[in-house]
């Protein structure tokens, strides 16, 4: 694990800071997720993987934004337009051989990153028994990414779910429709700015507030 991977430290008992408010009226607070970047050597066989990709993929310098090694996991941040090309190399190069795309999912870093919508691709190499994460970041105004369904057909439903939940548009996907939410649903529920509903209760018109507005112990 690299030095800068230690990004949060406990301070005081259970991390009480500022006023030490224990009333709960402070409400739910989301912290800014820090941006990490690791330098060589990455440790383990991570250097080997990055070297192999650099050798097999001539546009490595333009496509890789940064490399992060955290908690024993390697993450490559990829320029969104290049993700399909990188996946193709990751799958086909004999020194990489990431045959299985385990998972595609999104994360919304609202308020932390201007390109707030991230897509994480978890790749597994069965030959070398390695895992790697590729991550792309796009803005909510232009949430376009090339689809990787041509390379990994398993991405079909997983990209549809990511579109459904985050509104990320995968260009070239054969059938990018909603999958878990109803077809006529509006909005993308996993976005952090998606409005949450409260629950009306039968007492003098009261309403249980939505979860993000409740009195809460931080």
């Amino acid at each position, binding site marked *: 694990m690299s030095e800068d991977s230690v990004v949060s430290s406990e301070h005081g008992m259970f*991390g009480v800071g500022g006023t030490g408010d224990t009333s709960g009226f402070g409400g739910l607070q989301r912290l800014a*997720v820090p941006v990490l970047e690791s330098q060589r050597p990455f440790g383990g066989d991570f250097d080997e993987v990055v070297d192999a990709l650099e050798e097999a993929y001539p546009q490595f310098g333009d496509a890789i934004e940064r490399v992060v090694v955290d908690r024993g996991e390697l993450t490559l941040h990829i320029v969104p337009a290049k993700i399909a090309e990188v996946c193709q190399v990751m799958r086909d190069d004999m020194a990489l051989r990431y045959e299985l795309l385990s998972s595609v999912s999104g994360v919304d870093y609202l308020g932390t990153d201007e390109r707030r919508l991230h897509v994480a691709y978890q790749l*597994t190499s069965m030959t070398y028994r390695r895992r790697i994460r590729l991550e792309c970041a796009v803005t909510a105004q232009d949430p376009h990414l090339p689809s990787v369904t041509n390379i990994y*057909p398993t991405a079909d439903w997983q990209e549809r*779910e990511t579109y459904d939940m985050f509104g990320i548009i995968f260009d070239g996907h054969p059938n990018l429709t909603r999958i*878990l939410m109803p077809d006529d649903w509006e909005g993308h529920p996993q976005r952090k700015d998606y409005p949450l509903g409260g629950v009306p209760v039968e007492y003098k018109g009261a309403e249980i507030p939505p979860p993000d507005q409740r009195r809460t*112990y931080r």
Partner: protein
Amino acid sequence: MSYAPERETTEGRVFTVTGGDWADVVGAHDPVHDERIVVNMGPQHPSTHGVLRLVLELEGETVTDCRLVVGYLHTGIEKNLEYRNWTQGSTFVTRMDYLAPIFNETGYSLAVEKLLGIVEQIPDRATTIRVMMMELNRISSHLVWLATTGMELGALSMMIYGFREREFILDIFEMITGLRMNMAYVRPGGVAQDVPAEAIKKIKEFLGFMPKRLNEYEDLLSGQPIWLARTKGVAVLDVTGCLALGITGPVLRSAGLGWDLRKTMPYCGYETYQFDVPTSDDADVWGRYQVRLNEMRESLKIIQQCLDRLRPGAIMVEDKKIAWPAQLAMGVDGLGNSLEHIAKIMGQSMESLIHHFKLVTEGFRVPAGQVYVQIEAPRGELGVHAVSDGGTRPYRVHYREPSFVNLQAIPAMAEGGLLADVIAGGASLDPVMGGCDR
């Protein structure tokens, strides 16, 4: 004047109604080969394992096109997690794949522990209990598969036997956790409570009779002509197809690739257990049946080894800033806080009371970052992508559910085959819609 030719019969006058070019229209179509109909199967259908909907285009009895519609059981568990603390997450994730709750919990707990950096600190006893519970759960899940698939393919008695033995495992779960399903037993840091002595006795009893019962199932099904006809050469999917579609678990192993995360990327100390990874070369429903049946036998071996190495000790991580403060005990009204713990926090230790209060109301903080943890669930790779912003609640948790990913294989298996084989092929994937839709 009559509009149609008529003739007198003993039943009365019969009109033969024709008109226009109707005869030509009918004659131009071959009723056997051109008849395409679209059938909607599900979402309420006994053999779609919950609320799965299949839109099938049929030509006679042959399926020419198959599309799946999922999402009927979407309950927003991943979104809900973001507004509860990390410990409460166990209670949510256990409800995803309701046939494999222990796997959902363990995957989640391993992810949270990796984020916290306490993987090394989990007590041996807790890890052994997790492995034992996972393997019991694997057997109970495979039993439901065997029972329901048997029922769908016409072996009704298999359903009764499968559920009978599963019930025994659920009784063991109830003894250990207090609940039959959705137990929230595996928690970040360890497990909720220790295994009582009578449960160990019951597990030993189970290990005693189960091998014989598995042989009985095999005697019941394996030589049965109908069972053979319904499974052999049905819904074939080879290794290439599996990898392209991301299919893992028994379906991949039935195609001949012995990829089992317990062996290939071990977790929870699986590398220290003696067991084999059953495979088959058939790549069909029969192969998946063989693989699952043999996996149950291997799970029994692992459970025996767990019992042998179960030593007294802690079941929750030492760190008092993380460990759930309760000591649960079974009371007359079910599982609850033990009287000793209440006496301690209310009467003896102020610090224990503070810990209890802070952990229960606020929860522990998890350093910012993201991890992906994958474990071998009964249906394949269960992956947990957990992201923390450094706070007391998950920032994002995504489950890579094997049911969700594996269901994509149904069109590849079904198209070109018979309608009846859609049932066999779909069942052989063992989808659980609670997991698929989350």
